[in-house]
């Protein structure tokens, strides 16, 4: 079982979204596994990556996408602590990934307006900067003399094989990739000259690559991805928060003049940087985030309402907050009034938009002088500062 969602019959010849989601927690041949090899390169069992992949699947089936969700293929290798996921989907072995990736690509090739979604959570390694190798469940399967990365795939080949070409001219032109894996460079890999991953597919010459194909990486080179044990990865927590509102931005207005909201490549990139940083700080994580691939603007999902923005307002110097009156007004909302002395810095959760800020001193309190500013509240959070001297 891997095709956990199949609406192809209902969608017919219309464009749809085709997803491939892979979550690997159990690695039998790595440290702590039932058939662990003598030198597992310092890589052990994971506890939350299969759960994370399943959360992403649940989000995808509920999300408002630009085109309907047509197929969602899911491969999961849960850890013992993720027993609730056992049997839900086939294991994420190389053979299964190979088979499902080809089926996924075939579906994606039915219409250029299709959209694809790829998500991987599990171990990852890298052979050089800007390289991402995804380790599948049977990674390091004996014999020990087998090619080191034969049960792994690399992102460059994955994305390269999804490029438009003479034999897949109608492949989806919007492709979103999410790599939620560490990208460590084990010392043992240095023993090999140009170690190669298993070939997912041959690559084909010809065809103009005019895709929007961003790759959102959870962890920059040589850093380990973080997770909340037994729950989900830090990156997925940030990602799902962003996709459900934190990365919201205006998509303009529809034909009737109604505002439309959604998550775009740019808004997701900017919000992920902020949210991953916050999670690191709040949970003591060591997660990083970067983006690669082809960044042609595109919309990932639609939202029902404008985003709310966490606003922090500071007055410079802080002592002025003891004698000033602060009013925040605008965007059709009731003014927020703070009489002196007010708690500093000021924290507000405001709807996205523009606001006027007035700081007044009555009676006058030199050297401070009255100030008026116009600031923008942009999701997910923003810091405003007003200097009063």
């Amino acid at each position: 079982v891997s095709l956990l969602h199949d609406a192809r019959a209902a969608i017919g010849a219309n464009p749809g979204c085709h997803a491939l989601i892979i979550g690997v927690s159990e690695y039998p041949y790595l440290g702590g596994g039932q058939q662990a090899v003598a030198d597992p390169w310092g890589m052990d069992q994971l506890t939350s990556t299969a759960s994370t992949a399943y959360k992403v699947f649940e989000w995808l089936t509920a999300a408002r996408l630009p085109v309907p969700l047509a197929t969602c293929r899911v491969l999961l290798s849960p850890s013992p602590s993720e027993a609730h996921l056992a049997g839900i989907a086939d294991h994420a072995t190389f053979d299964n990934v190979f088979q499902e990736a080809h089926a996924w690509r075939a579906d994606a090739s039915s219409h250029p307006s299709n959209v694809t979604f790829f998500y991987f959570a599990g171990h990852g390694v890298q052979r050089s900067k800007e390289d991402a190798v995804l380790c599948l469940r049977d990674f390091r399967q004996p014999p020990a003399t087998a090619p080191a990365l034969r049960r792994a795939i690399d992102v460059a080949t994955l994305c390269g094989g999804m490029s438009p070409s003479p034999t897949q001219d109608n492949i989806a032109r919007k492709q979103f990739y999410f790599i939620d894996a560490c990208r460590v460079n084990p010392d043992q890999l240095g023993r090999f000259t140009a170690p190669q991953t298993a070939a997912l597919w041959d690559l084909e010459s010809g065809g103009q690559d005019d895709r929007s194909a961003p790759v959102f990486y959870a962890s920059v080179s040589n850093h380990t991805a973080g997770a909340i044990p037994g729950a989900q990865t830090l990156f997925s927590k940030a990602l799902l928060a962003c996709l459900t509102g934190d990365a919201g931005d205006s998509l303009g207005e529809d034909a009737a003049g109604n505002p439309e909201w959604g998550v775009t490549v740019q808004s997701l990139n900017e919000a992920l940087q902020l949210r991953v940083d916050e999670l690191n700080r709040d949970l003591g994580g060591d997660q990083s985030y970067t983006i690669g691939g082809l960044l042609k603007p595109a919309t990932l999902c639609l939202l029902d309402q404008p985003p709310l923005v966490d606003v922090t307002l500071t007055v410079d110097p802080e002592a002025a907050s003891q004698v000033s009156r602060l009013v925040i007004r605008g965007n059709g909302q009731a003014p927020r009034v703070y009489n002196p002395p007010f708690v500093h810095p000021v924290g507000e959760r405001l709807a996205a938009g523009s606001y006027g800020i007035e700081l007044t001193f009555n009676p006058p309190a030199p050297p401070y002088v009255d100030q008026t500013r116009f600031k923008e509240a942009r999701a997910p959070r923003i810091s405003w500062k007003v200097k009063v001297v």
Partner: protein
Amino acid sequence: MARVTFRLDFKTIELSSLDLPIEVRKPNATLIATALSSETIDVPPGAYYATTRLPGGQRLVAPFEIAEPPATQPLEVVLAPDPEDASAHEWEEVSHFLGRRSVQQSAARPLRAGRIASAARQVSPGALHLRVFSGNVVRHQYVPEPATQILQQVLGDQARLVQFEVPSGTKLLFAQLVQPGGPVQNLALPVSPEAGAQLIICQRDGEFRMEAHLKNHAADMLLQYSSYGAASTATVASRSEAVDGERLLRDKTTDPIAAAVGAYCILRIGDVTRLHDWTQHLRERFAWMPDGAAIHGEHLARMGSHAAALDAFAEVPVRGLPILADGLFYAVERLKLYASRTWKGQDPVDGRRAQSVLDELQPFALLMRRQRPISAYPGLDLSVPDTKAAASVFTSAGSIDLGKWFDPGAPDDPTSSGPLVGSRGG
């Protein structure tokens, strides 16, 4: 509908004349239009605000209203930085607003590349050296240059920042920052044959950092937007004539660095139809510039011509290390695929040749980070990237002793100790 124009109000003409990407939104953030600040747009009656975000992280916001019926004359909307966002000095305004945005630095893990760690906080004369080299570092064909003669100090804040002008030329130049007993950083200098480049050394949070800026400020801005993934903003910014590579080449300009930035941006946002055939001209006309070969190679690969792309990528090590990091990574990522995968079609790719070219470039890719848009990597020998520390006793003829500039015990007035090299004032 009313016509709306924009005016930028910075301290310097360089920034006020920039073509900034601007969004026009309703008070509830609904996006109405995107435009360059040089463009005129039509807007129906109502309340709006114009907003733009600079690479330094500052946001400019200006509310405006279109009355009913609209005036016949265009409404000019003025965008200016708030007082709290202004730069400390007028001469620092360009790097203040166009330098790497602060949010990126705080959001991501601190970037190590390009920095020299902080044991150097207590520097003293002789404890921090700036050197300059020229040539092809990929093929070990590089030589030292007299830094004290090549770099012109513009101004600086003692113990915090120093800014140099790099004169125009067609040599591939690298700045090297050496802290004896500490790491060594190398940074390619984006020297335009028309206008030179700018080099800034600053101390921030106890670390020393090298930053290079293009003299074409529109290209410099686009480079920053593009490098941190601001896809929509970069798409608008790349429409500016100042970075239109096709126009730059057509007008016989000698600023191929700006043209290269425009091309890299278009490749990043995947809009290859805008490249037409001018990437080939860039490669052919500026044979000294590695980026021309890398850009044309990636363009060819995007068009599906992989054998021809390999020909172009093979020229990269012959020319040298690309000035902009995208060039190296486009080449290396393609070469890895060419070397490792079977190719179908009428255009066979020579995997062995790809591996041979890859072997020359790979050592640099191992220690460079794409998040830094201008090529930067560690290593005292510029042809052998590594993270080894420099010798604790280090001397170098022709280098600039930055220790006396960043020495916390130095006089407050930088001019009292004299400039490091020939000063142009400013």
